[in-house]
């Protein structure tokens, strides 16, 4: 069975999406268990794959039995072996946590919602696992289209925000497609490994450089890398919480993965960092992304929107780290894919719980939440610590690698930006904590005058959230193992 994990990983969510869609017309109650079971199988396969990769090295799975480059093949190596479990586990936990929220918000459209959710996960997993450049585009579009659908169901402004996302996302995907076309026209192949084999003699070609740049711009558009980020905050803020807490942690991170995949596998690091003399400029762009993300977040008086700007800043972390051009920076970027997915999930799930109970996420709505929802807020504290970068939460360690990478690259601007963003995060989160902790102010201080007891979200929402919070710390403590056994091998040895 285990040799079929690569297929199961993607096919089971797809099949279940179809079955759920049919079940939605027949008996709505079947949808949730099917979805959970499917994502459970996917998570199981993902973990199984990672273990196999650790055991045997790169796994190749030929779809349709055709050898690449004729057919499409999956390549699972250390890089996507690490990202796959993250994607599937994040999706699974978020699904479980949001059951009640989904039923509350879309009583009539449960079937389509789960269908889209599962298709989205299929798309994301497929993007990560595939070894074919064009197949990646198709999966990108699946993830994107379902994402538009999920995001647009929210508040009044959601459709417009999503439509803007759609324009930008389509341009991004088309740019990627165009870049693949350029690579195809000069190499005649679509398979990533095959392209990588054919490319080196062509590195001086204008077409190859253009292909790389176009692909990068496309991917940056999709990951909301500053200054191409404008679509993200509104699209994520006004969406329903189940969708935003799936999409915010995963989509940007998966696109970072695609960027790193292109840089490391399809092209070579030497080409990205040396032949194209743009890496310094991109790191400076990342610095601006981090600073602007932090500053724009400061300007928000709205928890969810603030978090979306933090997502923008975090994208800057990873792009900057990847483009520092050394091993530590790349390690930090890859590690941050994992960590940022988890911590973004954590904080967005918290928002989901708050929205479920309080029906709002503006700062005024948050008063007294430490008393009302202590567990949810506890998770928010841990998530915030991770985003700030306090050990032993995982966010600290990826920041560690990023900063060490910046130091060894001599890029002190990037280091300063990371520190600045940590400091701003402290302000951002403690501003929220202050509101939740102090307000509403009592007339006279002290002495048991804070009325109102606990009003926590349902257990089914709190337990997954707490699991995520614990994972944040556990992953932090196991950083050494992750780096030594996985990420170290994901980066080509030529990179120092």
């Amino acid at each position, binding site marked *: 069975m285990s040799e*079929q994990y690569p*297929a199961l990983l993607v*096919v089971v969510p*797809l*099949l279940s*999406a*179809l*079955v759920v*869609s*049919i079940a*939605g*017309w027949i008996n709505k109650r079947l949808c949730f268990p099917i979805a959970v079971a499917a994502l459970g199988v996917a998570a199981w396969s993902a973990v199984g794959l990672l273990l196999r990769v650790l055991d045997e090295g790169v796994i190749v*799975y*030929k*779809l*349709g*039995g*055709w050898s690449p480059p*004729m*057919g*499409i093949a999956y390549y699972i190596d250390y890089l996507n072996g690490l990202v796959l479990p993250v994607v599937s586990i994040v999706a699974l936990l978020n699904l479980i946590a949001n059951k009640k929220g989904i039923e509350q918000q879309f009583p*009539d*459209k449960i079937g*389509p*919602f789960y*269908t*889209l959710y599962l*298709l989205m996960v299929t*798309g994301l997993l*497929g993007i990560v696992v595939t070894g*074919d450049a*064009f*197949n990646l585009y*198709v*999966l990108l*579009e*699946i993830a994107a*289209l*379902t994402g538009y*659908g999920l995001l*647009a*169901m929210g508040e009044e402004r959601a*459709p417009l925000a999503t439509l803007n996302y759609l324009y930008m996302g389509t341009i991004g995907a088309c740019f990627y497609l165009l870049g693949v076309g*350029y690579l*195809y*026209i*000069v*190499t*005649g*192949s*679509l398979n990533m490994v095959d392209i990588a084999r*054919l490319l080196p003699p062509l590195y001086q*070609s*204008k*077409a190859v*450089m*253009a*292909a790389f*740049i*176009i692909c990068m711009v496309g991917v940056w558009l999709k990951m909301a890398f500053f200054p191409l980020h404008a679509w993200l905050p509104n699209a994520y803020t006004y969406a329903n919480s189940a969708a935003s807490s799936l999409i915010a942690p995963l989509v940007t991170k998966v696109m970072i993965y695609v960027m790193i995949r292109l840089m490391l596998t399809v092209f070579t690091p030497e080409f990205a960092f040396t032949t194209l003399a743009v890496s310094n400029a991109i790191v400076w762009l990342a610095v601006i992304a981090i600073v602007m993300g932090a500053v724009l977040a400061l300007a928000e008086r709205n928890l969810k929107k603030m978090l979306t700007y933090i997502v923008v800043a975090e994208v800057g972390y990873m792009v900057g780290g990847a483009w520092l051009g050394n091993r530590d920076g790349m390690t930090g970027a890859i590690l941050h894919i994992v960590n940022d997915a988890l911590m973004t999930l954590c904080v967005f799930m918290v928002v989901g719980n708050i929205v479920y109970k309080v029906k709002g996420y503006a700062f005024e709505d948050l008063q007294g939440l430490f008393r009302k929802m202590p567990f949810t807020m506890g998770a928010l504290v841990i998530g915030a610590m991770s985003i700030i970068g306090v050990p032993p939460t995982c966010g600290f360690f990826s920041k560690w690698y990023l900063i060490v990478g910046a130091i060894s690259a001599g890029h002190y601007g990037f280091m300063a930006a990371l520190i600045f963003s940590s400091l701003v995060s402290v302000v951002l989160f403690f501003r929220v904590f202050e509101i939740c902790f102090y307000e509403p102010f009592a007339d006279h201080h002290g002495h048991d005058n804070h009325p109102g007891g606990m009003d926590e979200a349902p257990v089914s929402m709190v337990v997954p959230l707490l699991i995520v919070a614990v994972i944040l710390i556990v992953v932090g403590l196991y950083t050494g193992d992750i780096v030594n056994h996985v990420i170290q091998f994901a980066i080509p040895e030529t990179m120092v």
Partner: protein
Amino acid sequence: MKIIGLIITVVTGALLFYAAGDFPAWSDPASPASTYLSPHFIEKTMEETSVPNIVTAVLADYRSFDTMFETAVIFSAGVVCFFLLRISRREDEEPETRYYRHVLTGVTIQLKEGHKMPPSADFERIDSMWTPPDLIIKTGCRLLIPFVQLFGLYVIAHGHHSPGGGFQGGVILGASVILLAISHDLRTAVRRMSEKLIGILCAAGVLIYACTGALCLLLKLNFLDYSALAGILHVDPITARSHGILMVEIGVGIAVLATMIWIYNNISSAGRYRQGL
């Protein structure tokens, strides 16, 4: 915004023009794209899959995994349109007055305050803004639709040997039902193909595709390796590939057919499923 747009456009265009300098000339038989993979497809397809239409073979066999997701893309577009637009009966505020038209005589009855007409074949529900469909168009389309559908089926079935296949045929089939909705009204079309049926067909089409692949997996070969079907179909593995392609093409046809109609229904009526356009 216009100036920014212009700048971005010019910069991007300049980059693309610059890069195009290194491209092979148009229709150059020696370009990498024409010499690397394509000779294999052209020369080997027949013996490997026994399908003369190379596009079909590459689409549904060599790169069948792409195509499965392509179908899934279409399916998800259908679901998204439904998810975004469809207004459920509970949320839909019914107009206070309803209009019913006697089909034979054309007499219109107005019922107030949510009264309903008992179901009857003689009367049809109409919206307040109703224009009678043109008799010639109505009749013409009625005559045309069966032939359109027949052609659609032909395109699906003959995809192995001539241009065509599931997508093309599915679109033609879908268009026939949409034609009905345009020439009559949406209610008529929905009566012929209910929403539930369409929804299930949509998923079922993709399911046929994915299950064909999963069947290969159960038969101990890789996903979508149709040669695994040889045992069940009692043919040699190469013919099994050809049959496998047909199976998935049928699935694609069904999915595309249903999704086209589904998208049309939702968009044309903004999710209310009344008269439509």
